[in-house]
């Protein structure tokens, strides 16, 4: 199901990538580097099959898409699957791609040409995946019943859950701290858990009543993190995830689905919520404002993401279409992918060397 242009696009990018640093969710470089000339490649994981249920025929193209800014469109690559929830690259080799799906976790070693389901039947319904940039053979796999870790590039997996609660380890999101090998935060049913030994041991750093839906590290300041929860609002950490404070100025009764930093501006943050729509801050979280004018009524915002090249804010509206805003939410325009859900936005730097902290 790959579009004909995809191969060329990927090949071109891969050529430019001798040593790159891929981070699921956010680019690595400071804003001074995140300027024009498309320093980053921008990806989404999208389900474009409105009302798909098991048993239906998949009649649309779903899965991984890369932004082709020159053509002004999203180009599909990889396989066609309505259930891709997350993706990650091996920072040493852009051809190595990991995706989480209903079936589990699928890995490609050839830029998306071929794939292998590397989980077994007892590790399914993958939620998130991250590669440790300092130990790129190590891959973290968030599962609805815990966490699995691979140390051989996803070939085999083992459960690493010591310290996670027996009931309460539903893991929606997992994020590797780019400043320290083996330092990982997991967003679970009962809070945020931190491991500093590659998942062997976990400790709770933020208790929550309900699921932590997203945990993200700032591309500007690695000590700063944001988290979105089902019923506990938005939380921020300024010490690398050790301690957390609830963000004020945002409602908190209903679920937030994700958070995002603007890689081009450290002051700009955005969050997505089915109930509240899109909210943004332009002063690093001191104040927040609803930014739903121009979005469909009852916005049902599924995800927000920021184009790292332009600062364009995107909002995926539940089974509507992808919207974008060039003024950080004050006005919205419909983009492509009608009937879609974007489950994740990713960008990766084309040129950054593999940096150690």
């Amino acid at each position: 199901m790959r579009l004909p242009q995809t191969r060329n696009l990927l090949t071109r990018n891969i050529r430019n990538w001798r040593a790159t640093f891929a981070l699921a969710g956010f680019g690595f470089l400071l804003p001074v580097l995140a300027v024009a000339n498309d320093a980053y490649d921008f990806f989404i994981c999208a389900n474009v099959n409105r009302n798909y249920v098991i048993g239906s025929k998949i009649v649309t193209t779903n899965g991984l898409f890369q932004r082709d800014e020159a053509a002004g469109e999203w180009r599909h690559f990889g396989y066609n699957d309505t259930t891709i929830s997350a993706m990650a690259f091996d920072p040493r080799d852009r051809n190595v791609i990991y995706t989480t799906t209903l079936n589990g976790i699928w890995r490609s070693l050839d830029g998306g040409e071929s794939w292998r389901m590397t989980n077994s039947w007892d590790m399914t319904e993958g939620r998130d995946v991250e590669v440790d940039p300092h130990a790129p053979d190590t891959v973290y796999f968030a599962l609805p019943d815990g966490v699995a870790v691979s140390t051989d590039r996803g070939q085999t997996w083992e459960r690493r859950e010591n310290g996670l609660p027996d009931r309460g380890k539903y893991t929606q999101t997992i994020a590797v701290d780019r400043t320290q090998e083996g330092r990982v935060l997991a967003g679970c049913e009962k809070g945020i858990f931190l491991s500093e030994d590659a998942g062997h041991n976990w400790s709770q750093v933020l208790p929550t009543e309900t699921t932590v839906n997203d945990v993200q590290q700032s591309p500007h300041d690695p000590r700063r993190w944001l988290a979105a929860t089902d019923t506990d609002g938005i939380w921020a950490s300024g010490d690398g995830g050790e301690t957390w404070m609830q963000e004020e100025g945002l409602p908190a009764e209903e679920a937030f689905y994700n958070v995002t930093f603007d890689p081009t501006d450290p002051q700009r943050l955005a969050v997505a919520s089915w109930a509240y729509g899109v909210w943004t801050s332009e002063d690093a979280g001191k104040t927040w404002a609803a930014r739903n004018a121009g979005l469909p009524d009852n916005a049902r915002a599924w995800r927000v993401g920021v184009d790292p090249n332009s600062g364009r804010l995107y909002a995926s509206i539940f089974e509507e279409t992808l919207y974008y805003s060039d003024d950080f939410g004050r006005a919205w325009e419909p983009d492509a992918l009608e009937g879609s859900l974007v489950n994740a936005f990713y960008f990766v730097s084309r040129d950054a060397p593999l940096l150690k902290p």
Partner: protein
Amino acid sequence: MKNHFVNSRAWIAGLLAVTVLTADGLAQRSFESPVPERGPVPLDVRRTQYLDRVEEISQWRMGLFTPDKLDKMDMSAMSLMLMRGINIEACNDRVLEYMKEPGTGPFWMFPTTMVAYAGRDKLSAEARAAIREAWRTTRQLRGDTENHWVMYHTALYLMAQMYPNDPASSWANGLSSAENMIEGKGWLLDWMNLTTTIGQGEYNPTHYIGEYAIPMLMLATWAEDPAMRQRGKMMMDWLFAELATVTLDGMPRGPNSRTDDTSVVERWDALATYFSWQLFGNTPVGEGFRGWGWGNYFAVLAANYDVPEVIYEIATNRTKDILQHDQARSRRIWRYGDEHMRPIYKTQYLREDYAVGSHQGGISDPIQSHVWDVTWAVDDPRGVHNTMFSLHPHAAGKVMQMFFCTYPEPMPGGVTYEGKPSYNSSNKLLGCSPFEQVVQDHDTVVALYDIDPKEDFPQVNGFFSKDLAEVTEHASGWIFARGGKTYLAYRSLAAYQWEPHIRYPNGRDPTVTEETGGKILVSPHVKNGTILQAAGVEEFASFEDFQSAILALPLSFDLDTVPTVKLTTLRGSHIEFAYGSTPKINGAPVDYGDWKLFEGSHLNSEIGSRVLTITHGKLGRVLDFNTLSVTDMVLP
């Protein structure tokens, strides 16, 4: 597409003759026939009649695809023809057509696997290669419920077995044939182990029994490993023994792990009824043999299954009441629950004219469960709403999140367009609630409610069928009625009002509804309770005598703080039940910790044993999954 059936006589000749013809020359189908005799037929004709039913549905299905409808021929018809070695060229063409756009998921996988096996020595090399290529190029979704996984893993196992040495590059999931067999077998063995130790997850389903039985029949027929074949046969016995025990004249009834808005009131209208018809011949079969279901696929291989005599007798020979106390398990709970899988404690009491069943209440399935009912026998169940029950209409995103990887908001509305149209309606009659607790003693059911006032629908709904007779609202608060040959006494412990009962003619459009003539009792009180007592008409001289007997029974209740009931039943049992506490029957707490996997009239099994003993009269069969042995015995 080439037309291989220019001569329609040749087409007809390609099909085997059916035995009974109507005046217009067409076979009178069972779904157009009077209700069959329900009792057991003589031993020497059972097998013949079973095979006649197989042949009838097979002929019907194949006959739908006349020369002018070849483009509609589905995989069940293809499988039937391939098994018979007829119309091979048409099957070749259709396979090639189908494989141009392969499906994705278990509902494509198992029919394709069936065609592949049925046609492995008959389909052309090109057609077989097209199937093989589809498995190389098309990713298959495993689905998100247990019946999906049975179909998915069975198909994966059998297809990998068909191409045993193929490399990883030849399968869409990037696993070699050997790895796919390990994957499929691993899941199947785990499911069988769970089912035979702590119970079936999708117990007593009104529809999904086919999704289990057909894969097991495929395993029993085509698995090369004799152990897997044996497991397939034994799991069918396991499933059908339960079906035989819990059905009333072939009809499924509560409790059900999963049912739907139609089947929960018209109990006969279910795919499970097809299986009763096929296996036992004790019920009418649905229109078109439930062509939308999977009965056709079972028929493809049904000749390879022999209905054990003991199971047949349980289904058809009901000379004694049945009382079973059994265990099952909930769907897997990902989060927002203390248990990985919640034990479900089922009570089943079946008599000749009615049956009462329940489980203990609480959450067991996110959408489609049915906790308790009384269902009565009717001469012809088609179109009859022969049941009574009540429930708290709970709908919540958080419940969806317990069982699915989802967020709180999308699913409650979304599922109403996916075959669950009533899900977030106040008047719904389907589902379970965390605020409902139930106890049953024979034909008495007490349900108590302490509903969170913040619930969307803080009320109790009771179903009162259009087919009830002599509905009488007594000044005492009891509502008396008669369903068939069953007297019913229903008590709402709090005030109520009536609403019309509606149905959803299109399960995928919740906005279109029709009134049925039945009513829903709505009791809008969060501290609440209901009592149901049933009895046979023959037990009382008159309806008035039944009412007098009920009114004379001691009953007290309190809804002010903790909903509490104390009553004496028609059978003389004393029930004490307070919400949140262990109910007592005749002074003894109902100790679920002591419940076996099956314990009762016909089915008996210890938790963790992997052994099921099935008995009826002097007949006995033991299914032992430890030794993969089946032992038939004659009891003293």
